[in-house]
């Protein structure tokens, strides 16, 4: 199938120039759990040129309520291997690079080099802070989180916005089983994907702003952060 056919509806909305811009971009997705799966799938369907997906985990039964790239057929298999296989079948237009790494333990500088941006979809604070420390200059990071049916996201621009490390006072979710419902996963993942598109286009909406989303009351709210 022609590439032009696959992205016809995208191009009809945002035009040929933006479609071509996306084809030349690369994204690093840290963590291929709930948010990583949604973000990666949306960016591939948007037509991004390359996506590097990083996770060290395997597919477990409790993942299947929200981690959309995995099925019963992949239980016990490597997440990045399964996700790469699925992502490559969606459009055939994105180079998918699986990386079975532990962020915070393994050196990811080589994987980050050449990426235009990072999606922070990690489930623990030490790894998120290590990822932030490893961000190359000029790279953006869209960072998201979930709890129950509530979520938050923001854009980190090194040297220009507050750091994650400064934002979170004494965070500790180590070893906890986090309650999460499917609707908030899709909501936050979709907002993250849109914010990544906007960063790639040079117009982030959430640099210095936290977007809070609550599903029970269907509320969204922007909370400004003063980094001065």
């Amino acid at each position, binding site marked *: 199938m022609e590439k032009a056919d696959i992205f016809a509806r995208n191009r009809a909305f945002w035009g040929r120039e933006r479609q071509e811009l996306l084809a030349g971009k690369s994204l690093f997705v840290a963590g291929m759990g*709930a948010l990583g799966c949604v973000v990666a799938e949306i960016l591939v369907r948007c037509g991004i040129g390359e996506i590097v997906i990083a996770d060290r985990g395997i597919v477990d039964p409790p993942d299947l309520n929200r981690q959309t790239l995995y099925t019963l057929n992949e239980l016990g298999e490597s997440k990045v291997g399964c996700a790469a296989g699925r992502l490559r079948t969606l459009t055939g237009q994105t180079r998918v690079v699986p990386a079975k790494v532990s962020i915070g333990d393994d050196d990811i500088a080589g994987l980050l080099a050449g990426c235009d941006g990072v999606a922070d979809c990690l489930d623990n604070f030490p790894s998120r802070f290590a990822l932030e420390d490893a961000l190359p200059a000029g790279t953006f990071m869209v960072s998201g989180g979930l709890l129950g049916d509530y979520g*938050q996201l923001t854009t980190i621009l090194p040297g220009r916005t507050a750091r994650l490390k400064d934002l979170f006072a004494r965070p500790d979710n180590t070893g906890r089983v986090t309650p999460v419902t499917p609707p908030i996963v899709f909501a936050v993942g979709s907002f993250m994907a849109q914010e990544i598109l906007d960063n790639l286009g040079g117009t982030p909406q959430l640099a210095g702003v936290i977007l809070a989303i609550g599903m029970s009351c269907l509320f969204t709210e922007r909370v400004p*952060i003063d980094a001065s």
Partner: protein
Amino acid sequence: MKVQVKSFFSVLSGGKPVVRTLDLQEGTTAEDAMKLMKVDFSDGAIILINGRPSNEKSVLSEGDFFVVMPPVSAA
């Protein structure tokens, strides 16, 4: 002194963010205000005072706008 507090912790039990104006003594910290708002700080928080990232030991001042949000990660 009067301090306005907005807590997003209420959304974890299905509500909307709660805003209250507290009448506090001089020297009150963010942690003291969170206790008054019944915010469970055991897993940490995002603490913004007049938009600035702060921590639980930060001392509040007259007219401050104090926002506290849950510390969430992906899952």
